[in-house]
């Protein structure tokens, strides 16, 4: 296994001159579903590994910020064989618009799924506009 890795490294350095980048800690962008109905907007986000104590949901002026820290229990000295997920930090934010009622936001976290409900202000719920024809 060590030999194969070295071979791969050799071929890579022959083909590219790029110096290996120093990257800051990766933050994962959780996938979301967002939909709107007459009452408001619902956002559903996948935050596997995040419990209520490690979730930070904030409204900052008109921005909705979702932050979570996943906790995965692992035995000491565990070595990674394969990893699709390489960070435990989730973060994503959205700008809300004025007709949404940030005071009435409610959220629910279950099995790593965050559901955020943002109702529209009562006075802006859709009214049908009658069209007069002369």
């Amino acid at each position, binding site marked *: 296994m060590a030999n194969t*890795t070295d071979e*791969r*490294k050799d*071929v*890579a350095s022959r083909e590219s001159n790029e110096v*290996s980048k*120093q*990257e*800051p*800690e*990766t933050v994962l962008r959780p*996938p*979301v*579903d*967002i*939909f*709107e*109905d*007459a009452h408001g907007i*619902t956002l*559903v*986000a*996948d*935050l*596997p*590994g*995040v*419990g209520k104590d490690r979730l930070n949901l904030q409204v900052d002026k008109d921005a909705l910020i979702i932050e979570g820290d*996943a*906790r*995965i*229990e*692992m*035995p*000491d*000295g*565990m*070595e*990674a*064989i*394969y*990893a*699709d*997920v*390489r*960070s*435990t930090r989730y973060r994503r934010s959205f700008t809300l618009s004025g007709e949404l009622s940030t005071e009435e936001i409610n959220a629910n976290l*279950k*099995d*790593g*799924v965050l559901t955020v409900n943002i109702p529209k202000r009562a006075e802006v719920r859709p009214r049908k506009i009658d069209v007069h024809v002369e």
Partner: protein
Amino acid sequence: MFVNLTNPGNSLFEGFRRAQDEMDEMFGRWPWPAGIRSVARGTYPPINVGSTPEQVDVYLFAAGVDPKSFDISLQQNLLTVAGERRASLANDANVYRKERFDGGFRRVINLPEDVDPDRVTARYTDGVLQIHIQRREAARPRQIEIK
């Protein structure tokens, strides 16, 4: 596995990540073969596999799955995990984004040869399915004496 990546020199993960990135660059390029059971990046659910001399752990990042719907089986060293996740949307809704996986999934993972199919446990917490498989004793390295 999730060591702070701002310390690249010390992180066991950084070396692994670099090797993985190089592997990704070469994916599909002749003559490097891909594992016959490997799947495209971004296949749901994401998985991590880690090992110690005593056990192998598989983590599936599958939030919102009904734990009863998981079908986990281990044959020799081939682990198969299947399950289903329904993303429920209101019927009369305008959908702006639909990024979350919706449907059934099945992942097949090739584990080290010495895993013991009789000693497997699984737990589902906060959307992560953790599967622990003990390794057989005989596989531990033995010191060879030089006479």
